């Protein structure tokens, strides 16, 4: 089991190296010269001398493989370089903005769990009842509605018409409600359906039949046995949908002018702030991979048979 965990953790390293490699290659094959992009973003008139100086400063005169190794070494030291636009270290600008994004992401995950677990569970137990139909309809719209549009619809109804919540910005808890709801609907849609089908699957298992023949109350069977096992796919879903959550924060932050990391990324794209774009993409890949790793480990804790399966596979 420990060797399985160790192997899983070690497997993260090549993925991160590859992520850095991809962004590195993309920047090098792009028609944009980083030195020129820097001067444009910093509003400096480019002359041959300044360009040459900047190329030297960015290490662009070095051979490619040395540039790559240098990039990797810098990122290992958490040195992402400086923003072209503000000339501030990116790591500082990141740490300023990440709490806002975390607040948004965590509250929408909590909201999604609080709503989808009872909903998914009840719609499986009371299959084809009114609650099941309502939850299906909700999942259906949640999966098909564009997030930015949903955000504006909520602003229109709850801020413009009813004047209940502020339109944009961050501050009080009222500011958090609409962005968190917008972000969580897609997650609610997925988790509710996942949990529903997983509970239905478990109810067909022989241990449920055995528990029933032993005369256990249906409520005990479901609460004590089925739920614990049925929840595992939902945890997997949580990990697999981290990417959706991350892109969701980019869009939702833009809609609600939420001063987070995603907005920083979009601004960087418009300003051609290459180091910021690179840092965000690498950061997103690392977070995505680490979240999947954590999910794997949680699953392992809940179902130790997985490590045996893992061993057989390799």
């Amino acid at each position: 089991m420990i060797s399985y965990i160790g192997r899983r953790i070690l497997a993260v390293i090549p993925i991160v190296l590859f992520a850095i490699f991809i962004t590195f290659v993309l920047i090098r094959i792009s028609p944009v010269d980083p030195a020129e992009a820097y001067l444009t973003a910093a509003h400096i008139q480019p002359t041959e001398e300044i360009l040459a100086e900047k190329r030297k400063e960015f290490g662009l005169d070095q051979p490619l493989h040395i540039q790559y190794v240098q990039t990797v070494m810098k990122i290992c030291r958490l040195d992402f370089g400086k923003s072209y636009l503000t000339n501030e270290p990116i790591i500082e600008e990141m740490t300023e903005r990440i709490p806002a994004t975390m607040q948004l992401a965590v509250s929408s995950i909590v909201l999604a769990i609080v709503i989808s677990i009872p909903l998914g569970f009840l719609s499986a137990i009371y299959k084809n009842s009114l609650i099941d139909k309502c939850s299906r309809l909700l999942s259906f719209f949640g999966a098909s509605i564009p997030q930015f549009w949903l955000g504006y619809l909520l602003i229109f109804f709850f801020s413009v018409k009813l004047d209940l919540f502020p339109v944009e910005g961050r501050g009080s808890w009222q500011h958090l409600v609409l962005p968190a709801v917008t972000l969580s609907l897609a997650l609610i849609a997925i988790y509710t359906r996942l949990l529903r089908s997983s509970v239905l699957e478990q109810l067909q298992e022989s241990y449920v039949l055995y528990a029933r023949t032993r005369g256990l109350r249906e409520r005990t069977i479901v609460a004590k046995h089925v739920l614990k096992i049925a929840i595992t796919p939902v945890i997997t879903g949580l990990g697999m949908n981290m990417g959706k959550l991350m892109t969701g924060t980019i869009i939702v932050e833009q809609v609600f002018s939420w001063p987070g990391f995603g907005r920083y990324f979009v601004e960087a794209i418009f300003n051609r702030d290459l180091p910021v774009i690179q840092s965000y993409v690498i950061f997103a890949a690392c977070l995505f991979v680490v979240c999947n790793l954590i999910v794997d480990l949680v699953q392992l804790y809940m179902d130790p048979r997985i490590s045996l399966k893992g061993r057989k596979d390799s």
Partner: protein
Amino acid sequence: MIANIGTVLKSKKTIVVCSILLLLFAVIAVFAPWISPHDPVKVNLALKLKPPSAEHLLGTDHLGRDNLSRLLHGSRISLGVAFLIFVSAIGIGLLVGTIAGYLGGWVDAVLMRFCEGVMAFPSLVLVMGIVGIFGPGLMQVVLALMMVHWVYYARMIRTMVVSLKQREFITAARISGSSPWTIIRKHLIPNVLPPILVMGTLEMGWAIMDISALSFLGLGVQPPTPEWGAMIHEGKNFIRSHPELMIFPGLMILLVVIAFNVLGEALSERYGVKRRY
């Protein structure tokens, strides 16, 4: 309508209804220049923000452009680009997936490690990163989406090919002297294509949402070209006085995405293809 979504999803009728709806959208997209009552990009400030009338059935926007014409034209980009990505991603995926699966060995290992590397990114973040590095624009968005999406098809196709390879008819074809290329073309591709097309239908909904999200952020289609996501972006400034400017294009996206999702699910239930979450 709510009463039996479950049974409806499996029925042939759903497939027919969704297909007709999507076909209708496709016809609109193709014939938009002929059926639109007005020029979608013609600015006329004298007519700005007019309510619906006989001349402008859905009113006009902040630059006096006809909303209905812009909505009709908007379908061209959303559906056109989604279809382009669908075809190219499946095409590249088929090529790489069958080669990796059929040849195995180091070719397989290299190709699959590459795919896994790309899959280590949340897909839209990588697309946005590519667009950020190469600069905003529709062309860049299309290329970025293609570069990222084929990977998922390649992985699935490779898995299918690996299991198909064990089957007798492939062995028989090999023994009878068919070349690997003939086997891939005549035996493997016809077998993997139907389930992949079903999965692709489900992915179309996502592709349309991704394209409109990128345009909404200002990374894809540039003004004045009409596109639903970009129209929502422009319409949001008038949310207090003219909410319909952002509501209509959103409804169009919703309708198309629902049609693709329902069709995809109905097809996958009917043909027993498992959905990837």
